[in-house]
């Protein structure tokens, strides 16, 4: 009896502690008393209202599976449903959003709305976001950018109303990132004015085509185009694959990709084309066309350039993935950090209360650098969206470069953060309803779709090298891609670093620039040495990957720091600027600590590396009091978080079973 009283007292005490930490922001002294709304405004920018509108729509519909836990309502898909049920629910949710007018006039609205949709829907469920994105931004995007007016007039409206359900058949069993290597073959029949699409071998079957297994009625097909015996390279065509009743076209075979480790709400399928005939007008002809009598016409003669121009608009996919990945990262962090502010473990001295997880320096070290990094990377993602929206033919190269680099860096960060969050929540992280563990499966795909991250990073280095060599050849200062710092004298790094130096923007910029510049020179030297030995360029790039990888990282980190500084510059002096400065120092210091290249190439002496390591510890304890406000500023509504982010004791009480 006595034991029970004590226990209930402890529980009560625990609840008190828990609520104090979660509700009273002033429980620990905060140096920067900033407004969480203003910080969120920096993260979500002009889209705050749009994002909240989509959140509102999802929270209020029973289709989104609201469940009550301890008086709070949480919404999340029922992942215990079978794959087929999950797919059906995804479609029903889309129907609901369509009925609310979410997709009305989508193609006339700005690109920002597209980013809002993919990001806000992804906060609920990655499958929902992907299913919508495939339809509007891959199928719709291909028509928008690769097609011309005749395609827009014909397909936009039925796409907005879902009369036509589109998919995007690019990847094949044998070819993914290497789009130019696909084997699907299309020829032209001048006698009927039709193209004939064919899958010549098993490795040419279209694979992982989202929407193809069940729902899609139409697809954009990527295929080699052979005209009069000459292969003109990869082109895109519109093909109907099912009728309005869902019956497959007789010249098409479709199979299901089956159950996946995540994203089971999307019906990925495989398609074989058996000499499918489509009208000549279905060629998406923005860069090249075929006349009725079968003559190939293109304004761009060089096939390399033509291919680049052709695929360039699809950069939007990477921009979108980078953006989405930041939202899932935020969910993971918000949950893990809130949990670490209410969960205690072990007493330091006998008979003393147990210590709050986030008061352990180790726990701070695990989560807080990731938190600061997430802010830095989110600003970079916003920058990427903006340069994408404002792109011009001249800026396309830097958009492409930034999107490749940031897609890789941001999605890697997302997966790493989710893994850390899942571990930081202990076994609670395994429970599907607590999201953090489950999100890993749902978002893993980001690392390889729309370009394998490793391939993307190598491309970044290749582009940088080409730009560097071109400037050298012209004997002119280098311009663009943020490389202008190479024209300046080599930055000097102080031989004895201190806390105050580490926190200056001057030092932070200098050391990031130094790394990029030196690695670029090293990469150029290494490549030229190989060239001197008569090796082919292709071969050289396969063997110099180590430096290329380091350079890709260096470019990304410098770009991210630059966008961060640009954001900071817009903020007047005050607590908000203060916290942003602190997080920037955390971001740069953790990069210095974690990336081996600083020591490997001696940008940091071992003594200085030790100072950096100590600084991380200090920064963690300074960020600690702000942890809750910083995750609140993400603006993810409680309903999209998890029971462990709140009163998990009551949520798990017997009475709530």
């Amino acid at each position, binding site marked *: 009896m006595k034991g029970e009283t004590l226990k209930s007292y402890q529980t009560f005490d625990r609840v*008190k502690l828990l*609520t*104090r930490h979660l509700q009273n922001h002033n429980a620990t002294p905060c140096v920067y008393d900033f407004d969480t709304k203003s910080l969120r405004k920096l993260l979500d920018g002009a889209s705050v209202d749009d994002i*909240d509108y989509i959140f509102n729509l999802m929270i*209020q519909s029973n289709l989104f599976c609201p469940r009550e836990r301890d*008086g*709070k309502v949480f919404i999340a898909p029922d992942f215990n449903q079978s794959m087929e049920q999950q797919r059906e629910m995804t479609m029903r949710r889309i129907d609901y959003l369509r009925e609310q007018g979410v997709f009305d006039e989508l193609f006339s609205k700005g690109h920002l709305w597209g980013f809002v949709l993919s990001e806000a829907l992804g906060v609920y469920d990655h499958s929902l976001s992907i299913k919508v994105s495939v339809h509007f931004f891959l199928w719709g995007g291909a028509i928008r950018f690769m097609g011309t007016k005749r395609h827009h007039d014909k397909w936009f409206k039925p796409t907005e109303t879902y009369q036509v359900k589109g998919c995007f058949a690019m990847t094949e069993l044998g070819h993914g990132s290497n789009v130019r290597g696909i084997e699907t073959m299309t020829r032209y029949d001048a006698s009927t004015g039709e193209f004939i699409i064919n899958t010549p071998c098993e490795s040419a079957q279209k694979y992982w085509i989202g929407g193809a297994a069940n729902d899609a009625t139409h697809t954009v097909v990527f295929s080699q185009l052979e005209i009069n015996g000459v292969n003109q390279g990869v082109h895109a065509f519109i093909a109907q694959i099912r009728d309005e009743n869902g019956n497959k076209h007789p010249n098409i075979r479709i199979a299901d990709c089956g159950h996946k480790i995540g994203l089971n709400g999307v019906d990925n399928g495989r398609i074989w084309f058996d000499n499918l005939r489509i009208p000549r007008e279905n060629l998406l002809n923005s860069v090249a066309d075929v006349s009725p009598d079968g003559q190939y016409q293109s304004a761009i003669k060089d096939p390399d350039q033509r291919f680049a121009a052709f695929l360039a608009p699809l950069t939007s996919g990477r921009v979108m993935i980078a953006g989405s990945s930041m939202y899932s990262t935020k969910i993971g962090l918000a949950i893990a950090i809130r949990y670490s502010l209410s969960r205690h473990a072990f007493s330091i001295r006998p008979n003393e209360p147990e210590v709050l997880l986030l008061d352990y320096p180790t726990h701070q070290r695990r989560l807080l650098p990731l938190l600061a990094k997430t802010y830095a990377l989110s600003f970079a993602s916003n920058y990427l969206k903006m340069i994408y929206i404002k792109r011009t033919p001249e800026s396309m190269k830097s958009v492409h470069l930034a999107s490749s680099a940031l897609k890789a860096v941001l999605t890697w960060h997302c997966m790493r953060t989710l893994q850390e969050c899942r571990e930081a929540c202990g076994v609670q992280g395994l429970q599907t309803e607590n999201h953090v563990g489950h999100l890993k499966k749902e978002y893993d795909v980001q690392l390889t779709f729309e370009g394998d991250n490793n391939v993307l990073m190598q491309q970044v280095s290749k582009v940088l090298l080409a730009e560097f060599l071109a400037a050298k050849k012209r004997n002119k200062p280098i311009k663009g891609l943020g490389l202008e710092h190479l024209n300046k004298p080599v930055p000097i790094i102080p031989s004895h670093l201190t806390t105050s130096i580490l926190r200056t923007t001057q030092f932070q910029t200098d050391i990031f620039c130094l790394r990029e510049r030196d690695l670029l020179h090293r990469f150029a030297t290494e490549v030229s040495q190989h060239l001197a030995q008569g090796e082919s360029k292709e071969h050289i790039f396969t063997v110099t990957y180590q430096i290329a990888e380091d350079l890709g990282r260096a470019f990304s980190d410098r770009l991210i720091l630059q966008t961060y500084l640009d954001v900071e510059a817009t903020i007047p002096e005050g607590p908000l600027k203060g916290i942003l400065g602190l997080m920037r120092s955390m971001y740069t210091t953790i990069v210095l600590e974690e990336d081996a290249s600083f020591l490997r190439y001696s940008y940091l002496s071992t003594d200085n590396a030790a100072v950096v390591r100590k600084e991380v510890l200090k920064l963690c304890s300074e960020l600690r009091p702000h942890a809750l406000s910083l995750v609140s500023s993400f603006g993810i509504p*409680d309903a999209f978080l998890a029971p462990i982010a709140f009163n998990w004791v009551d949520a798990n009480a017997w009475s709530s079973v």
Partner: protein
Amino acid sequence: MAPTSQVLVKQTSNVRTIILNNPQQLNALTPEMASQILELLNTYEEDPSVKLVIVKGEGKAFCAGGAVSVFLNVSWKEAATVFYTAYTLDYLIATYAKTQVSLIRGIVMGGGAAFAVHGRFRVVTDDTVFAMPETALGLFPDVGASYYLSRLPGFFGEYVGLTGARLDGAEMLACGLATHFVPLEKFSALEDALCKANTGDPKIINNIIHDFSNKNPKLKEKSQFFRLKTINSCFSRRTVEDIISALEEEAYKNKDDWISWTIKTLKKASPTSLKISLRSIRTGRLQGVGQCLIREYRMSCTVIQGKVCRDFFEGCRALLVDKDKNPKWEPSKLELVSKQMVDSYFAPLDDEDWEDLKLPVRPNLTSYAISKL
């Protein structure tokens, strides 16, 4: 306890019953009453001998809302202090540590609704009438309405908040504004039973009320709650303009009294009020009750400051003073209310000694106290 007092207290061992006592004006809440109740509730929360707090109205109404007329003859800063107290009181009720029961007879509107709806147990009956009629008056549903309306099923909250639609007891139970429905003839017996039980154990209280209640009061045949599907598809729209055109489209397909009334009511309400109310409810959906009240305080102060729009004074003139029921709203049309105007209601006021609402720290907040709906 003077018999003329506007707040009466009945004391039976461990139970305190707070009675709103201004029956001539349907117990409309005056600033004095609000401060008095605030004080009482604070005392009871501290006092270990108090276990259960009951709130009810004297006579046939619970509370007809805040006595808005008091605002007409005072400076906006004085009026702001009235809101300050009222919202602090709402917060206290919403997060009250002790068990509290609201016995809701008759009219419960506007400011009065806060008492009723923020409480732990909300018992309604046959003659209960609930409404948040602020938009007709140039105001917006405040007192934490952006919290509780936004948590109603689907987009019913937007409907109730924008149109000021009246709900009866059965509808309140159906949508979750009430927790129990007890037939009128058993109402006083319930009160006696609660007093007699002399406990604060929420489970026991729940069982007692449950025993008296009608578990499944019939919704009237033409209840608006049956229109939830239409309400969801129209009131989920992005803007007030979109909501009205969705309703008109619906009316075109399927015209009836309810939909005509809904459209007519929206067109009669202050355009500015409609826009800020919609934004307030939508924002409230993603916030806690405290954040909702802080935001609503900004909005209320902007309303009574009268710099952005003077619809509140016009509404009071037309409905309470001249009673010509013909307010001349300015701006007169929805499309004339700019986003900038709406934004200004949600920003801190540009005034030297104005400050955001600072709610008391509530260390004992249990989660059921945070969210009861």
